[in-house]
């Protein structure tokens, strides 16, 4: 089992993601965005960063990278595909996930820890979490406001495609926890098939105590167990 971490020009969380994958014992390799094949890989992660400098829109130019056809094939084959932060933006731009990520309501680039509630624990990426577990994870983005039209939002809710939702910190006020104005407090979603997942927070930046949180670790452990099931 081998996980591809796609590197676009401007990706900057690729090494952190490789670190997190290897930390849980997965084989992981970087793959440059001009590659046309992902043969030999059973999963792909599109990491955070600023692909193509966020020019035009975040993720808008990366979707045309040659590797995206291979990512699409992996996704349609049912293999896990993950987009973290900028990777999530690329997946929505490419149409692999519904909706879009717009400028944060307050126009700030926001870099801080937030809290998330886990809404699904039956996915290859989330079996290691408890239902409704509240996680602490960092965000670092300027365009993270999840938007979709009313019909799409309703479909997402009905199909239980919302996987992570911004939530109040334990023992804190109920208000002001949504950091970017995302509709329905959406922090992460999955496609209907349940294998393509995108999230704005950074699980790879929360895998060791020294980083301030280990709540991202089960994300990668889940992925490892899912991939062992595939092999």
């Amino acid at each position, binding site marked *: 089992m081998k996980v591809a971490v796609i590197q676009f020009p401007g990706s900057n969380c690729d090494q952190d993601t490789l670190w997190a994958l290897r930390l849980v014992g997965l084989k992981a390799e970087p793959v440059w965005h001009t590659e046309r094949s992902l043969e030999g890989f059973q999963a792909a992660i599109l990491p955070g960063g600023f692909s193509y400098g966020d020019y*035009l829109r975040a993720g808008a130019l990366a979707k045309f990278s040659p590797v995206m056809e291979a990512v699409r094939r992996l996704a349609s084959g049912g293999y896990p595909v993950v987009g973290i932060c900028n990777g999530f933006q690329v997946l*929505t731009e490419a149409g692999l996930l*519904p909706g879009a990520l717009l400028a944060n309501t307050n126009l700030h680039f926001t870099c801080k820890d937030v809290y998330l509630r886990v809404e699904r624990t039956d996915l290859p990426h989330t079996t290691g979490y408890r239902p409704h577990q509240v996680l602490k994870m960092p965000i670092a983005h300027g365009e993270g406001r999840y938007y979709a039209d009313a019909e799409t939002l309703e479909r997402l809710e009905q199909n239980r495609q919302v996987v992570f939702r911004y939530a109040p910190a334990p023992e804190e006020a109920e208000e002001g926890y949504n950091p970017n104005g995302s509709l329905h407090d959406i922090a992460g979603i999955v496609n209907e098939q349940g294998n393509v997942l995108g999230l704005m927070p950074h699980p790879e930046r929360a895998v060791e105590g020294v980083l301030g949180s280990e709540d991202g670790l089960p994300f990668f452990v889940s992925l490892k167990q899912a991939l062992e099931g595939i092999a």
Partner: protein
Amino acid sequence: MKYHITLLIELKDGILDPQGRAVEGVLQGLQFKAQNVRVGRVLEMEVEAGSEAEARATAHSIGKALANPVMEVFVVEAVKELA
């Protein structure tokens, strides 16, 4: 022939545009009575085409490739033949 194309990409009506709001606040501070300010993008380019209609069709295809239909609309604002 060479044509100069101007393409506008704008947020759809009804989608919150925090940039537009920030600009609106500043304009009002300057005593301008400006409302509903929206910020979009202008793309200019030159294309080779056999006719103005062909250049316009190309501009339309480019708009389709670059705009995100989830939250944006595009307009081919101008197609001008270059001397």
